[in-house]
């Protein structure tokens, strides 16, 4: 429990950022036309690829003789990049199907 307290009081601003970000997410997406559900899902998925940043940091932080760590880091980076690049590319292809609606 006090672990939590300590966390809250030490990461206060983090929590604000969290909450504000949640609000923005909700505000932006509510009442989106059905047509865009799929591209939006795909785009959001691409965004969730930010995790790649973590994977990169892992690799750069692992010390050279920790082979298992490096191997895993490698995998993490590859998977993350697939998510990012593939995600944005496929979203773009989906949206390519749309004419601008005025």
């Amino acid at each position, binding site marked *: 429990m006090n*672990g939590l307290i300590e966390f809250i009081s030490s990461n206060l601003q983090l929590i604000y950022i969290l909450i504000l970000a949640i609000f923005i997410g909700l505000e932006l997406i509510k009442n989106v036309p059905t047509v865009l559900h799929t591209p939006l899902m795909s785009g959001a998925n691409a965004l969730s690829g930010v995790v790649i940043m973590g994977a990169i940091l892992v690799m750069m932080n692992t010390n050279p003789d920790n082979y298992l760590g490096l191997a*895993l880091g490698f995998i*993490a980076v590859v998977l993350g990049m697939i998510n990012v690049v593939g995600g944005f590319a496929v979203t773009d292809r989906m949206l390519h199907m749309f004419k601008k609606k005025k």
Partner: protein
Amino acid sequence: MTLLLNIIYLIATITFVVGLKMLGHPATAKKGNLIAGAGMVLAIIGTVFLHDLEVPLFIYLLLGAAILTGSLIGWFMAMKVKMTKMPELVSLFNGFGGASAMVIGLVEFMKNTQVDDAQKASSSIIATIMAAITIGAITFTGSLVAWAKLDGSMKDIRLPKYNLLNNLMLIGLIAFSAYIVYSGSNSMLLVYILLFASLIYGFLFVIPIGGADMPVVISLLNSLTGISAAITGILYDNMVMLVGGILVGSAGLILTFAMCKAMNRSLGNVIFGAFGGDAVQSSAAGKTTGTVRKTSASDAAVLMNYASNVVIVPGYGLAVAQAQHVIHELEEMLTKRGVNVVYAIHPVAGRMPGHMNVLLAESNVSYDKLVEMDDINPRFPNTDVVFVVGANDVVNPAAHNDPSSPIYGMPILDVENAKQIIINKRSMNPGYAGIENELFYNQKASMLFGDAKSAIQSLINELKNM
């Protein structure tokens, strides 16, 4: 150096927000996606080159190789996939994202076991690591199952009391990771067990859910990936990861609800309702009987030619047959002959939301010819001919009449109210929900059997000779 990196992260975050915002509007969606993508690339480059760590060259090379490999694979997959297979792919990508978070958590815990007690991470850090591992693992297997199901290569499996079982398992997972955190345990073994259990749970969580509901599930899992990304963000207190992850988390959640609303079901019903499966049973049960009127291309052509209002109802079959171009040709031909033709678009026609819009947009059908369900339904009574092309569930009256039916309550296109109904499909086989459709036995209905593309083509030919 780090200042520059921080500014880059700031910019990236902004592109994420703006990009997501633009993705929500048809006119700006494409640009939005590119903006967010650019921000992501920027952030990645920044992370690689502007960090203040001592990184040996060969790790750099390794990193470069990994990034390159991932990019190439991702790009390749994205470019090769068929339009109709895109949702599957998204699910797969999503799974990879989860896996990445999972692995990161694993490595971090591993490192933590190797340092001496002085440098051990605080319990809150361990907690975030556990969260990253479990959530990541769940999204990983869950997405894989969703992918397999959409791909059709996996049917719905339902263990006895699966709902109870799953929920118990979830509670177990939480309790177990809580134990690891507070015991301050150091053993990789426990974590491996947790990891394994999470993988299993992700699997069990999705297998009972009907394939037709996979888009919803994917969106939900997507939201989870976002959350796990945010958690790893806390781990490195990296703002882009945090904000980006949370954005995806909340946006994904809202999107999930929006999708459920489109199929007018509750999220609970989607997850615990075991939709698709009951379908299979009830289709086995409720055998509709009656006579089916066949019709020929020529007769159908005559009907349409002399009608004043024709409504085309496209469905999954149109996509399978890739008949979007011929149907457009038919529509134009009829319009030239003074027939008033529009398309009736059901929100969940096809296999993904907006599937039909995307498909018809591809063949340059003008937007104002696509009429949403709520606008077209009142217009069916004074419609002379409805032409149903490869659609089934979305015109299945069972949604109104048969409370036992799995699609009961889903709003449908009330084509029965039209004067004449022509239905094109290859056989009497059921559609996605796997249930009979008594519409086919309706007095006004007549079947034009055959592959959509060829059937429509022959209609066009017939019309030409009039």
